[in-house]
C-alpha cells in the first residue's frame, strides 16, 4: 500500500516539473547578471531596481552575481546567452573600456541597449583636515610636485582610475595612482591617511562627506550636488571636464524588439516607483533615464572616447 502511494507520488511529481509551454513574454523570471560581487555600488542599485520592477513586469526580476576577470566573465556570459529577453546585463561604463584594455569576447555592440538608469559623476575626495582647501591649491601643489600626490582608485584600469587619468591630462598635472581592491578599501586608505586623495563616484564615500570626515575637492559633474550645494564643480572653476559612470541594462544582441519594449517599460515604471526613488536618493545616486536609442548612442560615444584614452594610457 505504502509502496503504491510512493510510486504514484513519484509519477505525479514528474508532472509538476514538466516544462511549461512558451507563451507571452515574460513567462518566467528575468535575470540581471552583475559582473561584480555582491555589495558594490552596481549591485545595490540593481537590486533595488529589481525589487520594484517585479510587479510592473508581472514576473520576478532576479539579480545574479557573476564576478570575475575584472568584470569580463559576467559580461561574456550575457553576450553569449540566448537573446530571448530573460537574461540581461547590468551595463556600466567599463563595458566600453574593457574591450580596449584586454582581449574580450565582446564589445558594446554585442548588446542591444534597453534602458539607462543612473549616471554619476566622478569626484576626488580628501580628508577634511587636508592642507588643500580648494581645487586651485590642490592643482597648484600637483603642478609644483609632479607625481607626488597619491590618488587612490578602486582598481587599475577601472572606471574611476581612468577618470583620474583623464583629469590629469586635462588639468596638466601628474598624480601617483595607487590601485586598491575596490571602492571600500580605497576610501578606507584615505580615512587612515595613507593616501592623499581618492577617486570615486557615489555612493562611495558619500557617508563620510555627510559626516564631514571627508571633503569633495573636485567634482566632475555638470551641476552641483543637491545634497552638497556648496561644492563647486571643476567646470565652474575653469576646467572643462565632466566625466562619470553610467549604469543601465542591456540585452544580448538579437533580442526580439517587443521583449525589449516590454522590459524597457517595466523598468521605467520601476525607476519611477517612489520606493526606488527614495533608495536612490539615500544612496545619493543620480537617476538619469535614457531610452534604448539614446543609451545606444551614449555607449557608442563612450566607446570611441575610451578607445582613444586607453591608447594614450598604453603609451
Amino acid at each position: 500500500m505504502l509502496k503504491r502511494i510512493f510510486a504514484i507520488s513519484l509519477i505525479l511529481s514528474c508532472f509538476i516539473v514538466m516544462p511549461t509551454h512558451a507563451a507571452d513574454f515574460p513567462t518566467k523570471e528575468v535575470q540581471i547578471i552583475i559582473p561584480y560581487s555582491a555589495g558594490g555600488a552596481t549591485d545595490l542599485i540593481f537590486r533595488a531596481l529589481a525589487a520594484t520592477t517585479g510587479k510592473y513586469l508581472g514576473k520576478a526580476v532576479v539579480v545574479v552575481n557573476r564576478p570575475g576577470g575584472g568584470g569580463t566573465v559576467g559580461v561574456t556570459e550575457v553576450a553569449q546567452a540566448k537573446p530571448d529577453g530573460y537574461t540581461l546585463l547590468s551595463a556600466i561604463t567599463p563595458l566600453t573600456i574593457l574591450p580596449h584594455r584586454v582581449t574580450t569576447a565582446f564589445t558594446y555592440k554585442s548588446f542591444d541597449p534597453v534602458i539607462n538608469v543612473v549616471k554619476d559623476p566622478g569626484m576626488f575626495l580628501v580628508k577634511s583636515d587636508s592642507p588643500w582647501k580648494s581645487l586651485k591649491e590642490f592643482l597648484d601643489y600637483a603642478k609644483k610636485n609632479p607625481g607626488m600626490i597619491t590618488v587612490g582608485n578602486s582598481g587599475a584600469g577601472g572606471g574611476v582610475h581612468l577618470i583620474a587619468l583623464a583629469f590629469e591630462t586635462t588639468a596638466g598635472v601628474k598624480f601617483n595612482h595607487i590601485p586598491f581592491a575596490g571602492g571600500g578599501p580605497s576610501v578606507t586608505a584615505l580615512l587612515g591617511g595613507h593616501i592623499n586623495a581618492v577617486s570615486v563616484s557615489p555612493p562611495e564615500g558619500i557617508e563620510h562627506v555627510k559626516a564631514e570626515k571627508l571633503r569633495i575637492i573636485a567634482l566632475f559633474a555638470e551641476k552641483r550636488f543637491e545634497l552638497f550645494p556648496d561644492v563647486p564643480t571643476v567646470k565652474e572653476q575653469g576646467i572643462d571636464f565632466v566625466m562619470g559612470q553610467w549604469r543601465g541594462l542591456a540585452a544580448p544582441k538579437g533580442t526580439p524588439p517587443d521583449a525589449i519594449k516590454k522590459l524597457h517599460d517595466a523598468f521605467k515604471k520601476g525607476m519611477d516607483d517612489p520606493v526606488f526613488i527614495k533608495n536612490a536618493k539615500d544612496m545619493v545616486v543620480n537617476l538619469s533615464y535614457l531610452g534604448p536609442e539614446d543609451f545606444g548612442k551614449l555607449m557608442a560615444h563612450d566607446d570611441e572616447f575610451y578607445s582613444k584614452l586607453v591608447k594614450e594610457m598604453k603609451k
Partner: protein
Amino acid sequence: MFESLQQLATGFTIASTVQNLLYCLIGCIVGTLIGVLPGLGPIAGIALLIPATFSLNPTSAIIMLAGIYYGAMYGGSTTSILLNVPGETASVITCIDGYQMAQKGRAGPALAIVAIGSFIAGTIGIFGLVFLAPPLAEAALAFGPPEYFSLMVFGFVVLSNVTGKSFLKSLMMAIVGLIIGTIGLDPVTGDARFTFGSIYLLGGIEFVAVAIGVFGIGEVLVNINQPSELLDQGVLMPRLRELYPSFQDLKKSIGAILRGAVSGFGIGLIPGPAPVIATYTSYMIERRVSKHPEEFGKGAIEGVAGPESANNSACQAAFIPLFVLGIPFGPVTAIFLGALLIHGVSPGPLMISQHPGLFWGVIASMYIGNFILLILNLPLVPLFANILRIPKRILLPLVILFCMTGMYTVNNSVFDIWMMLLFGAMGFLMRKWAYEGAPLLLALVLGPKLEVAFRQSLMISHGNFEVFISRPISIIFLLATVIFLVFPAVRLIFKKSKKGGG
C-alpha cells in the same frame, strides 16, 4: 559607558519583540541550512534573501540577515566535522581535528563543542562590541599598505606551519598556494597572469573550489582507494552518553574557547579575511599552549573549540568597522552594507547617533541569535552524528553530489566544478605524498593581499623600502617575524651547546 549599557538594554527590548525573535529564528534556521551546503556561504545566502526583507523595517531585516550569517557559520563547521568538507572558508581548520574526532566516533562532542564554544565567544564578543567599539574601529584605520604587508608576512610565516609537521613541507605548500593565488588579473596593473587565454581564469581560482577539492574530494578519493570491505562500514557509532562532551572535554576546552574568543575578536577588527586568519591563529595558539601537542591533528578537542570560538568572535568584531566607520572589511559585511543602504540606513560615523534603535537592536539580537543557535543545534547533534552511520558506499556518492551542488552555487560556474575536481586529484596526491593542505589554503587567501600590499607600499613611497621600517606598527610585525624565525634556531644552538658541554 553607562549610557552604552542603558542603550544595550533598550536594544534587548527591541530585539525581544515576538516579531524580531521570529525573524531571528528564521534567519538562524535558514542560515544553518545554507551553511551546511559547502560553497554556498553566508554571502550568497544573505544576498539571495535581501529581497525577502524588503517589506520589513530595517531593524527586523538586519536581525534576520544577521541570523543567517551566524547560522551559516555554525552549519559550515558541521560538514567540516562530519565529512571533511569545509562549509566555507573559515571552517577549513575545523576539518583538521574535527574530522579526526568524528572518525573516532566523537562527532557528537565535536559538534556540541562548536555550538557551546561559539556561544561563549559570542557572549564575550558582545561585551567587546558594546564597550570597545568606537576606539577600536579608529585603530583599524591605522593599517595602511605597509602595515598590512608586515602583518601578512608575520601571519604567513607564523601560520604556515600551523599543523606542526615538517616546516619545510608546509612552507613548500604555502609557496604553491601563493603561486596559485597569482593566477588571474594582476591586481595592480590589471594585466592577465597565467590565464592561458581562458576568461574563467581571469578572476583567479575560486578559493572554495580549492578548499572543497583538496579537503572534501581528496578525502573521498582517499577513502575509495582503501580496501573494499571498509566501504561497507559507516564510522564508529558512539553510544548515547558519548554523544555530548564529557566533563573532561569541557574542562579541556574552556581555555581554548576563551583564548579563541579574545584573539578572534582582535583579529576580526583588521581589514581583510579576518575569520580565516582568526581560526588559523587560534589553532596555532592552542597547539603551542597545550601540554599534549602531539594530539593535534588526531582529534584534539581544543583544536575544534578554539578556532570555532575565534571564528565567531571575529565575525562579530567585523561588524564594528561596518557600523562605526561605514566601511565593510570583508565580503559578508559588504553585503550587509548593501542591505542597510537598500533599507535607507547609511552606516557610517553618523549611524549610531541617527539610528540607535537599529544599532543596539542588532547587537542585542546577535546575542539572542547565538543563544537560539545553541538551543537549535544541541538537540540536532545526535541527528547529525547519525549521518556517519550510513555505509560509505552510499555516503561517499552523496558527499560528491553535495560538493558539486555547493560548488556550483558559488558562482554558477561549471568551471569552478572542474577546478574542484582538479584540486581533488591534487588533494589525493598530497595525502599520498604527506603534504598538508592547510598552509596551501592560507597562502591562497593571504597571497594576493600580500603582493598587493607590497606593491602599493612601494608605489606610495616611490620605491623606497624604508617605508616598511619607518612606521611603528609595520616594524613591530617585521621584528616579530624575525624573532619567530630565529628563535627556534637559537634555542637549538643553546640546546646543542648544553649537551656538548654537560
